[in-house]
């Protein structure tokens, strides 16, 4: 089984879920999905349980890898990649 170490940053509610803001994370596997499954949330589930539905990212979450927004959870990750996760918030009102 392959493994990688990436730098994970969690913003907003996901920081509370994971219990950290930024951390180096070593995980078994090679994809974003593998990483999400390796990150436990405070209720004993994983970030994959929280952020995906039917194998796809829920619309209310955003993930970037090295600064680029990623929607495919099968995207490969490599050691030293920077992964940022956040909830998609209703930011601005008005017109």
């Amino acid at each position, binding site marked *: 089984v392959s493994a990688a170490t990436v730098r994970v940053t969690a*913003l907003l509610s996901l*920081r509370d879920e994971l219990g950290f803001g930024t951390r180096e994370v070593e995980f078994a596997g090679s994809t974003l999905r593998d990483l999400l499954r390796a990150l436990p949330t405070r209720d004993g589930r994983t970030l994959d349980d929280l952020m995906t539905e039917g194998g796809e990212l829920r*619309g209310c979450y955003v993930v970037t890898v090295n600064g*680029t927004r990623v929607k495919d959870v099968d995207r490969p990750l490599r050691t030293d990649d920077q992964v940022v996760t956040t909830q998609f918030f*209703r930011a601005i*009102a*008005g*017109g």
Partner: protein
Amino acid sequence: MCLHGCGIRVRVQDGVVTKIEGDPTNPDNLGKLCPKGNVGMLRLYDPRRVRAPMVRTNPRKGPGEDPGWREISWDEAMDLVAAKLKPIRETDPRKLVVASGDFQRIFNWAWPAAFGSPHFFSTVGQYCGAAYHPINGITHGCFAAINDFDYCEYWLQIGSGDGFSSHLHLSGSANRMADARVRRGMHVVAVEPRMSPAAAKADEWIPIRPATDRAFVLGLMHSLVLEHGLYDREFLRTHTNAPYLIGPDGGYLLSPEGKAMVWDAESGRAREWDDPEIGEPALEGRYEVGGAACAPGFQLFRDVIEEHTPERMEEVTTVPAATTRRIARELGEAARIGETIEIDGRTYPFRPAAVNYYRGAIAHAQGGQDCMALKMVNTLLGNIDVPGGHLGVPLDLRGFFVEPGEHGTFKPQAHILHPPVPFAFPPNSLQLIEWFPLGMDCGHMSVDVMLEPEKYHLDFRPEVLLTYHSNPVWNMPGTERVKEAMARFDYVISIDVLVTETTEWADLVLPDHTYLESTVLVMCEPPVVKGLALRQPVIPPLYDTRDATEILIDIADRCGFLNVWNDFLNFLLGLTARPELMLQPDTKYTAEEIADRVCRTVYGDDHDLAWFKEHGHKVVKRAPEEMYMPYAGLRIPFYYEVVKTMGEDLRARFEEVGYEWDTSSYVPLPSWSPGPVHRDDPEYDLYAITFKSAETNFAENLSIPVIANLTRRVAHHRGVLLNPATARARAIEDGDRIEIASRFGRIEGTARLVEGIHPDAVAVSNAITRDIGGRRGTHFNALLPIDLEYTDTFTGALEACARVRVSRLAAADGSRNGRP
């Protein structure tokens, strides 16, 4: 002073700003400035500036009440803010209501969301663009739109000041418009009730009865399609959903595999839209597929416009049918349907004729349908996002929002400013955004909801109002009801530069720097350029003021959500693209530090803040491939199926909760039916409209003495405009004092008789609206309703036109007009 990002150069002599001029290196405004930009230093030196934090000493509030301001220290002021807001943040953040209006620092509009407040207590943006922005986003993934200055040859302007007096980046647009008209001979036709600057300079002005623009456009489309046959069938077939079969329920007829279908005229059978065997997708006809009656969306459109003859529309608009027919022919012929053009080695369709429109045509209670109709004329001509045509304008650096949707279409992007807000009952927001799945935040509804909370099942009470460069007392319609709502707040905090009609209600005023004293990277709705320009201090702050960005950061810190706000900023400002430059959760950053990180994230470390301070901007004209057909391969809507299905979904949700809500405006095709402003009401026999010009656009600038003086010297800004025939019928003469009354309010003014206004209209300049500095204005907004009946439940647009009666006032001294 304005939401755009014109490049300027500022001359400072002995520490005093003495001159502002356009930056000739900035391709946005091409070295030009509007009157406001030229006198910007007078905002800096405005005697009405707030010079230090101020607290109210007079508990009585309202017009004419002196707040009894007492200056206090920033520490005292921020302690007061924290004492009010921290408990709300910790219990029910919905009790804080925020009114934001600072377009140049639009990222700060997200601050209420970080606090937990979902409200939008303002009509800024929404008053003009509530219908405009969603239809732009649904149709072609953009926030605004404008005709192609470079290649357009026939510009039909309907209810807009673009290129002449207002809207998108006026300084550059006016220059480009002048070039197109004078150097290239572009033909301009203006359709509007008043002879505006655009109409005055156009080749032709077509007066129209107010709020009937959609009827004119429907007649125009009738003539284009059914009489002249001048429309782009190839574009409709290959770039839109016009050939998709529509079933009896108004939605796409789907194949057993769930795909939209078209009728293949060549093989005489229905096929899935992406079937490579399709010979010729039919645009017309009625068919039966799998036992269901169906027809292409374009056929249904033809059915609708068939009854909208120029003659029938003339009864609504007063525009002669022959004129409509002639304009249709001119427009259709000028579109050069079938021609192509090569630009920088690429070949594009060439459609140098387009309709440009804005608030005058669409700020109505059926604004969604108005916008759809206007957009559809352009789609018919095949000119959407092609040279010479009608081009999308992005909100900012992010460009067009392009994402594949269903059935080969472009994914509708109704909400460019924020993701759609899920349905909720009772609503969480005062502006009911949870009930407008495709619309804008209709801030004016905040007032109705506050005053009638039971009607909307509101389960909390707003307590504190925070206004941030926003003046809801002045900018919202239904002025008296707005004041009634203002009186219901326990506490009002204002972040602003000047004392305004709203800060007069404040308990605490926190003074911001002016734009010449503060730092931010700006560019909003640039019609032809992309890039960021730096707004930087040209002198140290004159008074004890602070940068609003830093004020909001400080409040977030004192209320315990700095980490949340920094996360918001990381996402909003795109800092997630450079994780090492993201703001740390619990660090307070200055506006300069944030700007530096934005510069480096967008342009790299060699373009940091120091580089921008030296060079000013990194603005360039958008390349042709960024402007033309940026979503090639995805179809745009002609038949607005998404509107229909979204309306049905909304209706089902309201039925589930047993609440009555009108979803009848969610239609896939526009048609003419009189809106509430056209209701039969003989007593109120005229239509009142408002207007502005370059120097009065963003009328907060009317507090600048030279702008106020300038407008006072112009007769049409001083008075209320009436057609001489209309005045004669009411025994009104030029200079008479008159009353303009609607069913919702009344104002007074001085009659100015001009031929350049439709006989059914009365026009009130926004230059005489301000109630500040001891002046009492004639505010058009007082004539308008502020309720659901006059709101488009599809887009959230509010009716900006009022039915009124006009009569001469008897002077107290017996003279004819109150003057000796």
